[in-house]
């Protein structure tokens, strides 16, 4: 088992900072908590312009994304899959190819869901090192003096537990246990169409779209054109939210989902029903951002619990 000690980790990271742009996403609050997806799928992406296609030049150099936790690592792996199928997304993978992902997890895992290197917290000054990709392996090889091999199981200190009383930690834990059965969630959310909870939510939800912007797995976008004062035209891919009124509105004013109720339900429907059909998973990793940032205090876990309970009751 490969391990790295706390002080060596600092040195290793310093070394990386010399060579690469280094982003510690735990400390990156520059734009109000937008998740890591913005580095690969930015809020506004130029697709092409009349002064040339941006595809011909590499925009930025390689960069390190450090500190992705378990939900984020899972989300990144899912996002890779989404962007790969059915057509590979050029812009996403251009940035993905330039990235080095280093995860930082507290959970004791048999297998880790993604990242080039994942550091598993063993105790206060030691991390188990997972090398998941060739990129990660090469990086460790080049800096092997910081790492050491240890045999057998580490049992000297127990791994730190997720605090039960800390609200987000507890929220994540319970949400993630629900996500273990995506088939059931798909069935339940599909069944819940017409459930009274969607009427209630329509009144509670402000339709602002924040939940989708902070979700590491929401990737809806609109294609919009801009005309500059210098006559330069640019076509952009811009984040959008399926809860916004214009999302399914077409020329002439007709909307395929005219009310917030339909749009909000569609958000759930995509995450738990359509995503399950497409990828066999729920497009939720239980990170908790949507409920933490919702100005109307909507908690998706509570919604799922409610409809799940009613679903179970229906056959009684």
């Amino acid at each position, binding site marked *: 088992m490969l391990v790295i000690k706390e002080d060596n980790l600092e040195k290793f990271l310093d070394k990386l900072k010399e060579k690469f742009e280094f982003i510690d996403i735990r400390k990156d609050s520059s734009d109000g908590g937008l998740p890591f997806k913005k580095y690969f799928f930015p809020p506004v992406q130029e697709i092409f312009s009349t002064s040339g296609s941006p595809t011909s030049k590499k925009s930025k150099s390689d960069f390190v994304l450090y500190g992705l936790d378990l939900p984020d690592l899972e989300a990144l792996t899912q996002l890779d899959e989404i962007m790969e199928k059915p057509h590979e997304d050029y812009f996403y993978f*251009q940035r993905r190819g330039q990235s080095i992902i280093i995860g930082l997890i507290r959970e004791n895992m048999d297998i880790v869901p993604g990242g080039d290197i994942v550091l598993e917290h063993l105790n206060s000054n030691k991390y188990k090192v997972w090398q998941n990709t060739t990129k990660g392996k090469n990086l460790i090889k080049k800096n092997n003096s910081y790492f050491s091999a240890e045999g057998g199981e580490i049992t000297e200190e127990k791994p730190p537990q997720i605090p039960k009383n800390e609200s987000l930690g507890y929220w994540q834990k319970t949400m993630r246990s629900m996500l273990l059965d995506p088939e059931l969630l798909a069935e339940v959310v599909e069944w819940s169409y017409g459930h009274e909870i969607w009427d209630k939510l329509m009144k509670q939800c402000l339709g602002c779209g924040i939940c989708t912007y902070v979700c590491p797995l929401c990737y809806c976008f609109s*294609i919009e054109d801009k005309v500059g004062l210098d006559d330069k035209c640019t*076509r952009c891919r811009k984040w959008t939210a399926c809860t916004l009124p214009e999302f*399914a509105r077409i*020329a002439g004013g007709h909307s395929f989902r005219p009310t917030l109720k339909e749009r909000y339900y569609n958000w759930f429907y995509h995450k738990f029903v*359509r995503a399950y059909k497409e990828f066999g998973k729920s497009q939720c990793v239980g990170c908790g951002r949507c409920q933490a940032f919702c100005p109307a205090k909507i908690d998706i876990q509570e919604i799922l619990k409610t409809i799940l309970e009613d679903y179970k009751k229906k056959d009684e």
Partner: protein
Amino acid sequence: MSNIYLPEIVKVTKIEEQSPTVKLFRLVPTQGSEFKKNEKGLVFIPGQFVMVGQIGYGESPFGPLSSPYEADYIEVAVRKAGVVTNYLHSIKEGDKITLRGPFGNGFPLDFIEGKDVVSAIGGCGIPPIAALVEYIIKNKEKFGRVYVLYGARNPEEILMKKKIEEWRKEGIKIILTIDKPADGWDGHVGFVTDLVKEIEINESNAVATMCGPGPMMDALEKVFRPLGIPDRRIFVSMERKMQCGVGKCQHCTTGKSYVCMDGPVFYYDQVDKNFD
């Protein structure tokens, strides 16, 4: 890996007024002299759609209506409705615009082959059916009886009148109807219920195709059901807000399906129970 959102530039060589609000545009490639053909030798499969637009205005989805065998040009009909379509109505022959596609599945040609075909069109829904009719005419010996029921609000709004006459000469049975009586109109008026009597098909070996706005679902109840065509053999061309065309942006979803990838042609069973 290439930029899947990058359109090609095409030249407009013909613009034809079809109705007070609809114009037909003939688009010709600027790179090379022909559009690429697929493995069936078609430029697109009838029922597929293309994204037509202009940089600075945007793109909108249209179903090509020209013959899919025609590689020199693609024709689309554009109803004036929003930003892109208003722009298109303002351009002149010789102008250059953008084209992306074709996208989607199109009608299941191999399945339709060897059968009687009844198509129902409402309003502006003629393009995909028009391309299908062109395909059928080219492969006449492989198809049974072919009917086209076309309903429009008034005589002026019947599109592709010249083509319709050509199709008639080729043996396609066309039944036109308008919503309210109008001067100089001696065709059918009102909804198509009665027209069922005029249709003779072998219902156990017939398919239906349809394209048109919401009320067209009536056609299904009033025509296809009485004719005995089961839902699995009724192919509807759906419309949603297609934007990326490649199953990513999420605008065009209906239930578990993407109209741009899984559609726009669905058999009725696939979509009738969708929540949206």
